[in-house]
């Protein structure tokens, strides 16, 4: 049992879940057993919109995963709910990425392992 198990269960169902404290309502990421704001042990999964902004990014040119073609852009995304998440950014040349770029989540299967990925917000998408 790991504190983060619920997150990966959510990803399997195309849902981006974060722990929301049942007592004070604070969202937290990365997962943990106790609310850093009020020390409550009670929480429920909260589905995030999947929209956010790029904070910082690098190009990972030497991947060790067998099923990921190099290179991958690794991004830190600040989600609109106020939590941050590491992911990969697709659909844009890394040279065109900038701080504040609006992105949205999508889900991709890598040889049977589904992962959250991000792409620039499409025009007209909700």
């Amino acid at each position, binding site marked *: 049992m790991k504190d*983060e198990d619920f997150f*990966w269960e959510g*990803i399997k169902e195309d849902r981006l879940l974060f722990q929301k404290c049942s007592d004070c309502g604070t969202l937290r*990421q*990365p997962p943990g057993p106790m609310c*850093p704001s009020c020390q409550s042990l009670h929480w429920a999964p909260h589905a995030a919109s999947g929209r956010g902004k790029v*904070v*910082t*990014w*690098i*190009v*990972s*040119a*030497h*991947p*060790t*995963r*067998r*099923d*990921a073609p190099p290179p*991958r852009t*690794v991004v*830190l995304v600040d989600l609109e709910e106020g*939590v*941050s*998440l*590491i*992911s*990969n950014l697709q659909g844009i040349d890394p040279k065109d990425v900038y*701080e504040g770029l609006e992105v949205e989540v999508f889900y991709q299967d*890598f*040889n049977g*392992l589904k*992962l959250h990925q991000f792409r620039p917000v499409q025009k007209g998408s909700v």
Partner: protein
Amino acid sequence: MQNILDKTAIVGIGQTEFSKFSGRSELQLAAEAAKAAIDDAGLKPSDIEGMVTFTLDTNDELALQRCLGIPELRYVARGPFGGAAASATVHLAATAVASGAAKAVLIYRAFNERSGKRFGQPMVDQSGYGGFGSGPDFHVTFGLDTPAKIYALWYAHYMHRYGVTSEDLGRYSVVARANAATNPRAWFYQKPITLEDHQNSRWIVEPVLRLLDCCQESDGGVAIVVTSLDRARDLKQPPVRVAAATQSHQIGGNIMWDYYRGAKVQYREAQSTARQMFASAGITKDDIDVALIYENFTPIILMALEAHGFCGPGEAKDFIKDGHIALNGSIPVNTHGGLIGEAYIHGVNNILEGVRQIRGTAANQVKDARHVLVSASRSSMILGRA
């Protein structure tokens, strides 16, 4: 803040040679360095009552105790994780001495980090998906699988924010290698580089880190003996006082994957350790004669210079360009060559250089050095004369 640590002193330092292939066990490196440090102090192994290293060190305290013939240890402690704990070793040892828990404490750090387990290599793909046991991981799975990539993600944020270029970083590497070139202990002794060499070195993480922005991978061992200032006055070497030592770990932080608490453009832990130490030692940054700064990669030098107030936020690139950190500058940095130029003994070799600067025995001696900063950003100390 009441300062009791300044009644303690570093009285002995020892090391092996720094290499890429030591040809002997990590425990032997620890034992050789420890024996050299105890001899340097003019003490006997039986005088050692405590031991301190990193949680990451593979050498068991009791195995080293047996090598050295120490009858009993009464105090054993480890600083958290890796290089961030480099200066915490002295904090822990000095605290033990000041409290009376141990009369003399041996600090050691020894590894075959080049010929054995290399930290710079990608974390092992055990599951086919990530590095840590079964299933995905929040970081490794997405490509953050080497220290260069893990740290580059937040260094990139700093660089974007302040318009820091690869050349700006390279100017530090040139200084580090110039200092190493005249330090016979350094792996890169007599091997200086130019900015052009830096710019021609290959990308490790584009567009943040080139090869010559990365610390070395090294084999070697270092050791330090800490005891009370009173006792130090009767020992072989001029005592080097622990003028201040502290640590900082702030809520939401993470030693490597430090992405979850907003902007990473300033190093809050380094700012805190600086504030704490200047207050407890009763000095300011203007009193620091030499700054020895843990640098896994070049950008941390810039962030640390700003965190200590040697220059303002975003000004470090110009501060370096203007020559301030060179040997003849206003605040010489990493006079031994640092982890890029001398060796990567996880930052503890920086403490040995600090001791030599205060003793007046450094290869690149800064004239009349009275206060030396030895910062590993999350742990830090100021060394001074007795």
